């Protein structure tokens, strides 16, 4: 068979996608058509990549994990942002292209994460001493949970950047710098396993986000930026205090200083201290999520932020709160988390799902409405996490990604109309479906995803969360009530989203200003297309996604249960202690802690030689 023919046989899905992509758009030039075709082919490549060829996968040896991959993923944008500083301010085209190139390369690099079977444990682990005196290391790794958040981030940020370049024409250099730095910081926070490193990234991402809101925002941008900053900061300083307390306690017991999450995870704190530390972490995370009553920064920030900023904020930044809860609260404070779960789940349902939906219903500003719908969606995510069943946590994880996709797409769509009319007031619109049919169709489609119509991604996540909460042991019979109440949130979601759709798109074209609005342009279509595609891929084949997260979720829940057992075993008033570590040195590179009971009182500082041992490359078990 000739190579050309072979190519056609093997690459027919991509070719088909390309051809369809070229054929679909109406009234476009050849160049735009080809661009759309390429995007379509790439999307198919991504989707095909999600299904490993099972027969081939069985035979193939376990793929090697390049330990530097995460470094590349995290630092490519960060170095990119530094490089942007050296590019000429006068040529925005160059700046934009460079930014898109870096983000695109980052996305391609992150696709490698899909090539590895995400068995439980840590992958692509990389450990490097950073500040050995303080036990601070550069320790990054991913598991099935963070992989998806990394991918979500690398997937949505280019879209957000692409959209931003369409609508923001001022101060391009600053924009590129902020976007890249924000991207790197978010990725860093998702992959770092050292609490200090995590904290650094956690705070680092605030700065570019404030710049994004504060420079390119709306009328009250400064107020919104302040509010965002102050809320987030208030939570995170408490978290820092808790981190320092844990590190200090760990040093008292184990004899050496470390900020490593995997080491601190084994620390069993006395009950009061555990509760306080849990509270501090929880506060930081639920502000970020955000959960009632700390959610009001979100609508303000969303309304004022530019479209690209809103997309990143909704799609990725909020996920840091939920991710933090899975990773740190469930990992390190299983006991307090377990005992508080039922109450917190009530808060998530009452204050998030129902309250958010009700408030969203009454909003006049489209973006504010979508922002409150975020509160409602994130309530579902938190409910799944509090339920701590496999379905619940998997559903929550899926819902995080779903929310990133559908709410990101909604913000993008709102941005489209804002660019045309410079208003977001619902009453300014009406009957838009007449003038912008494609826009209306896509808006309705994304709305369906947002309100969880089966077949789209929104349904699967909500369904799994509800099912997971209903059967949850930690929530008990309250969980069943909460699941039922959360289900009524599904009704309310339909109420507010469909009211919005009706007011915006249906009815007579009442406002003459809307009579000549152009439909979606190529840039907007290109940015939306991957999101729309993923809405269906995740809605119909969520398993390609959940398969990779399953082991990790199972081990998260296992750790949660074990942690709770250790916590319940603490006598009131007992001192902190260390749990025997499971993976031993393999995971952290640290020595075993001294056996409890033997030679208490004489705690030699940790032999520094142990720190010098080469960390395991790759770290997959």
């Amino acid at each position: 068979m000739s190579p050309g023919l072979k190519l056609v046989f093997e690459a027919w899905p991509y070719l088909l996608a390309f051809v369809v992509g070229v054929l679909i758009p109406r009234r476009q030039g050849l160049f735009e058509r080809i661009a759309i075709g390429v995007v379509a082919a790439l999307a198919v490549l991504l989707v095909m990549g999600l299904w490993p060829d099972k027969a081939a996968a069985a035979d193939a040896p376990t793929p090697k994990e390049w330990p530097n991959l995460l470094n590349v993923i995290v630092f490519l944008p960060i170095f990119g942002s530094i490089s942007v500083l050296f590019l000429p301010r006068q040529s925005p085209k160059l700046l934009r292209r460079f930014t898109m190139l870096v983000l695109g390369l980052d996305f391609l690099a992150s696709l490698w994460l899909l090539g590895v079977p995400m068995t439980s444990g840590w992958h692509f682990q990389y450990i490097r001493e950073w500040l050995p005196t303080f036990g601070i290391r550069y320790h990054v790794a991913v598991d099935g949970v963070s992989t998806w958040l990394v991918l979500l981030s690398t997937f949505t940020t280019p879209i957000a950047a692409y959209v931003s370049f369409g609508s923001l024409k001022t101060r391009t250099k600053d924009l590129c710098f902020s976007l890249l730095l924000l991207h790197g910081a978010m990725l860093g926070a998702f992959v770092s396993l050292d609490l200090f490193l995590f904290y650094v990234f956690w705070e680092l991402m605030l700065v570019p986000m404030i710049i994004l809101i504060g420079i390119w925002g709306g009328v009250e941008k400064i107020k919104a930026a302040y509010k965002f900053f102050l809320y987030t900061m208030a939570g995170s300083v408490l978290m820092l205090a808790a981190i320092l307390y844990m590190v200090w306690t760990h040093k008292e017991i184990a004899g050496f200083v470390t900020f490593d999450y995997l080491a601190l995870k084994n620390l069993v704190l006395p009950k009061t201290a555990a509760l306080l530390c849990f509270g501090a972490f929880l506060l930081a995370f639920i502000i970020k999520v955000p959960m009632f009553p700390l959610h009001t920064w979100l609508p303000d920030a969303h309304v004022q932020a530019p479209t690209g900023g809103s997309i990143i904020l909704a799609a990725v930044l909020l996920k840091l709160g939920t991710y933090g809860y899975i990773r740190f609260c469930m990992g390190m404070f299983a006991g307090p988390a377990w005992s508080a779960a039922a109450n917190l789940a009530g808060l998530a349902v009452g204050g998030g799902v129902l309250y958010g939906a009700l408030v969203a219903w009454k909003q006049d500003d489209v973006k504010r409405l979508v922002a409150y719908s975020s509160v409602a969606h994130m309530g579902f995510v938190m409910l799944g996490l509090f339920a701590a069943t496999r379905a619940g946590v998997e559903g929550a994880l899926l819902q995080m990604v779903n929310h990133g996709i559908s709410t990101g797409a909604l913000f993008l769509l709102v941005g489209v109309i804002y660019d045309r009319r410079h208003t977001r007031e619902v009453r300014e619109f009406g009957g838009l479906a007449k003038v912008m049919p494609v826009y209306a169709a896509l808006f309705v489609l994304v709305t369906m995803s947002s309100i969880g119509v089966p077949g789209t991604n929104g349904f699967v996540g909500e369904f799994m969360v509800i099912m997971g909460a209903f059967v949850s042991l930690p929530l008990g019979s309250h969980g069943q009530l909460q699941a039922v109440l959360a289900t009524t949130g599904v009704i309310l979601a339909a109420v507010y989203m469909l009211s919005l759709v009706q007011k915006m798109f249906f009815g007579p074209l009442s406002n003459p200003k809307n009579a000549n609005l152009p439909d979606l342009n190529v840039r907007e279509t290109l940015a939306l297309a991957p999101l729309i595609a993923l809405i269906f891929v995740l809605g119909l084949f969520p398993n390609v996604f959940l398969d990779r997260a399953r082991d990790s979720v199972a081990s998260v829940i296992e750790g949660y249960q074990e942690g709770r057992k250790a916590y319940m075993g603490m006598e009131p008033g007992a001192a902190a202690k260390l749990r025997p570590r499971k993976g031993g040195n393999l995971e952290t590179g640290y020595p075993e802690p001294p056996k409890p009971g033997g030679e208490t009182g004489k705690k030699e500082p940790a032999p520094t030689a142990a720190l010098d041992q080469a960390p395991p490359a790759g770290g997959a078990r």
Partner: protein
Amino acid sequence: MHALQKLFPPTEFALLAVILLLPLLGAIVNGVFGKRLGKEAVTTMALFAIGGSFVASLASFWLLASAQSAAHAKGSEEAVRFLWKGWEWVRISGRHDMAQLPLAIDFSYDALSGVMSLVVTGVGFLIHLYSTKYMDKDPSYHRFFAYLNLFIFSMLVLILGNSLPVLFVGWEGVGLCSYLLIGFWFDDEKNAAAGKKAFITNRIGDFGLIVAMALLVYYVGSLDWSGIEGGRSNLLTRVQMWPVGNQVPGTGFLQASMPSVAEALNRPRFVSAASLVGLALFLGCAGKSAQFPLYVWLPDAMAGPTPVSALIHAATMVTAGVYLVCRMAGVFVLSPAVMFTIALVGAGTALLAASIAFVQNDIKKVLAYSTVSQLGYMFLGVGVGAFSAGFFHVLTHAFFKACLFLAAGSVIYAMHKRIHDTDASQDMRNMGGMKKYMPKTFAAFAMAWVAIIGVPGTSGFFSKDEILFKAYTSSVAMPVAGGKIMDPRSGKVALELWGWPSWGPTVLYAMGVLGAVMTAFYMSRLVFGIFWGDFKGWKIVKGWKEPEHDEHHDDHHEHGPIEGPKPKESPWQITVPILILGALSIGAGFLNAHPVHIAPLDHFLEPVFKFANGAKDVAVAGGKGPGVALHPNAHGLMWPLMLPGLLALVAGAGGAFWVYVQQAGGPAKALAEKLPGLHALVYDKWRIDELYEETIIGAVDSLAEFAVVFDRIVVDGIVARVTAFIVAASGTGLRLIQTGHTQAYAAVMVVGVGGLGWFFVAPHAAATVKPDEASGSYQITAAPGLGYQYRWDSDGDGKPDSAEFGSQASLPVNLERGEQKTVVLEVKNAFERVSKKRVTLFRPKADASAGGPGVVQIEQGPDGQLRGVVPGQNKPIELRRPAPPPPGGPGALPVPPGLRMAPQPPGRPNPAEPHQHQPGDVH
């Protein structure tokens, strides 16, 4: 035949994929490319897709029928089910996360779904054909067919899905298509609002369906049909509905003050899981099938194009609820109370909707209420356990109601050509005498009319008569002996079920007959109004609005016909489908004609309803499983019970003939004038919509308004503003210090440096104690400082150990058990200043470092039983055996034999005593 069987084995029945994917393909092609493909291509694509699907359905049905007869010949009772497995969708958690349930996108094909898919694709094809003409002039022609094909696809997913979640995909999918099609002409705010109303009302039903799925996962552990049928016996358990959790929150403090109130509040209430599941499922069915209280969306849904009303809101989608009840029959029969509720709600809805249909003038509205009413009949049928009868009514109703709608559409089409006003061309008062102009349409309409009013021999007669007959003779038996669910552990009665009330059959039958009278009356009114009399549409032209009240008003301003086309017969694309459907509504009755003993459908469906009709997976005393109980004299009652039905026909249709043909509507007008209030009330649909608007929607709305205000004033106001105010106030205060003068800052710095200097000049005596109780050696370590020298007084007698200050920074002290000692530390710094500190050491008597089992306190619980409580834990330890009467005097708590007391370690300090000294206390 053999080739087909070989090609499509029962476990890999890929023909289902063909049935499903053809409409989907049509939807995608028409939706994405439709505008460019042109009208012809869209028509071809849509018809090909749905026609191919119909052909595949026919083939499948044939295969199924032959497979079933083969199985029957072998004596197998099992329902034949063809499977086509798609892929694993998600995995959800079983009860308490003990197991994972994979949910697969699987499709199955059995008798029930076979018949249903034939109806959907067959009627769907006819309606598609009809629409090619009806929607001819519409600019969004391709969009219409894309939606319609998508609807067919969703409906097929609904009926072919092998599990509840897959069914749910179709369930919401048809809701979505219904939403899109009702709002198809979205220029009109009213249409869009109707679509939204339909979707949201359906969502309320979907809420029930999700809850039902959650309950099934929790109690049964499966969501696919065979799994639910196999595990349904687990539903016969009790569920505590109240209180949620251990007790009602806040009753803890009531316990002491008002124990009776607390007990009344906390008394647990139980329901059987089967009832819960049944109710939740029925909520879903009520939403989709427009039953009370969720029927309000269906009449509004007539805002959509007429073919949509025929296909979705009459023939197929709205019967999905009945389909689901039939599908889950095995679960429903476990709860007679729920079944009776369904029957009662069905009968009630039938009457309510029929009463509204009496006075409506919009012909589509009349048909819509008629649909609601007929759906009520179906639920009456399935509610009394006559599943095949109810399902048969689905079938016949699909034919005659689709025919009625399409014929009405044909009339509207003709009227619209003259009037060009959507509302006026649907108004019955503008019609009349149409049989002259539209003979074929009239023929089809009349065939459907005789069917729906139940003229003997027509399909409506057989199906309605069967339902009425079963309403009297059939009921649902208790699923367990005596209706008592036993607790397997204690052997006691856990829950007593509610049974079928004795007055039930009579009431249901009476309601059914009354409904039949009403049906005959209002349907005849409709037919007479449209086709008899004189055409009243001459004076109506484009832009005509109905005069406000006074109908006499018109008489004074009588003027002759205005120019315009005459109503004329519709083209063949419209008449052929309605004639076919009319013929079917006459003839389809013989699929299940029990009075004449021809019942192939009943026979065909029998294996499907096996679990509803006494399968023995749940044992009842007497050897029969849960299911339907027939009246002992059922067979003999068949003919007697038919008589009231025939009388109802005669009374209803005859009455309508008298009122509307012979008296030309005079008595009706007179009655309306006599009772204007009642007439207005019924004309306004009993103002149920307004009631909902005021109560439920109003409540949610004000709740939302409250939430907005709360968000602004409390959350953003108190949480954020108050914090901000405190910070700002302290900032304002501190700002007074910030003069901006460099010197002032420098002066403050000098003060600070001075303070630090003073700190260094003054000595500080501080010490830490490291206790070691086991050996009794205590180590006191003094804090270091600038040029510090130390002097110790180790025996506390006031005289230092040495006169000179030295560099000894720590002092070991040995203590006997129980000994207390005071040590004085003196510190001298570089400036020769001296400070003193007294350290008191105490070594406790007993070694408390070895931990024993925790102490358990005994206390009397609220129920009078003794229980143990571990201090610091809330959960009491249940005592296994009841406590013997207290042997000692009052106040002496007995030690129950069931409780092992914690051994008291010798010398362990009693925790009740206030302890004086902890080891290492520094005073």
